[in-house]
């Protein structure tokens, strides 16, 4: 086993453990901390795929902004003080659906005959990525920034308190 594979299995194990912690933890704050672990491990997977730019973006946006936002909303909605069970009655069905999807996707990934090179990563340089993003994908890029703006204004309007509340 090459050292790359050792690193891959380590990062993959951390990712899966973190993800399992998110869905089974009994304490919601622990759940959010497991989410940070899983997201940072996914950044490691991105580095193994030689997508360093996306790994940096992942750590900045997910590791920083999104998880902090989630923790703040947990605090504001007092999730911890809720006496009810965290999981609904549909747990067996959920496990069944997840298991069925897992079996299907693993079977498809392993048995498919992928065209092209499946053993070797070709590194995409930063320069080419930026070039493509701002030339070929310039219109979707601008639309995405508009979507972000609209979503943030909408979030502010939804979350602010009204008169007399």
């Amino acid at each position: 086993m090459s050292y790359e594979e050792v690193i891959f299995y380590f990062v993959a194990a951390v990712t899966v453990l973190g993800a399992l912690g998110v869905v089974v933890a009994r304490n919601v704050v622990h759940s959010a901390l497991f989410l940070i672990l899983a997201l940072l491990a996914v950044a490691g997977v991105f580095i193994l795929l030689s997508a360093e730019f996306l790994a940096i973006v992942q750590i900045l946006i997910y590791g920083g902004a999104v998880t902090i936002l989630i923790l703040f909303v947990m605090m504001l909605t007092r999730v911890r003080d809720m006496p009810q069970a965290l999981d609904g009655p549909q747990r067996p069905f959920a496990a069944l659906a997840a298991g069925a999807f897992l079996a299907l996707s693993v079977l498809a990934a392993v048995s498919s005959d992928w065209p092209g090179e499946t053993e070797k990563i070709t590194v995409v340089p930063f320069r080419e990525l930026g070039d493509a993003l701002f030339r070929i994908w310039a219109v979707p890029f601008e639309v995405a920034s508009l979507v972000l703006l609209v979503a943030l204004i909408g979030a502010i309007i939804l979350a602010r308190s009204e008169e007399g509340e």
Partner: protein
Amino acid sequence: MIPIENFLVLSGILFSIGIYGVLARRNAVLIIMSVELMLQAVSINFIAFAVYLHPEQFTGLIFAIFVITIAAAEVGLALGIILRIFRNKGTANVDEVDMLKW
């Protein structure tokens, strides 16, 4: 080198865990966190296909950037809605928010 199947299997496992979380949890914030896991699985898939199979076009990398952008917008908006629901109903459990059902 690591074969592409390893990344695809990891992505499948992550997506299944996300499915379980979305279906089993009752609290809206925990459901959002499970949705984030599913989006991560999709990003891994996109990037793996981009760098292994079509490195000369790398559309998958661009798609992953857009996935992260839209996910950030989605989280901001969803958490705003959850805050509003909590203020109006006093709960963030999705099975108690049934104003559209009668």
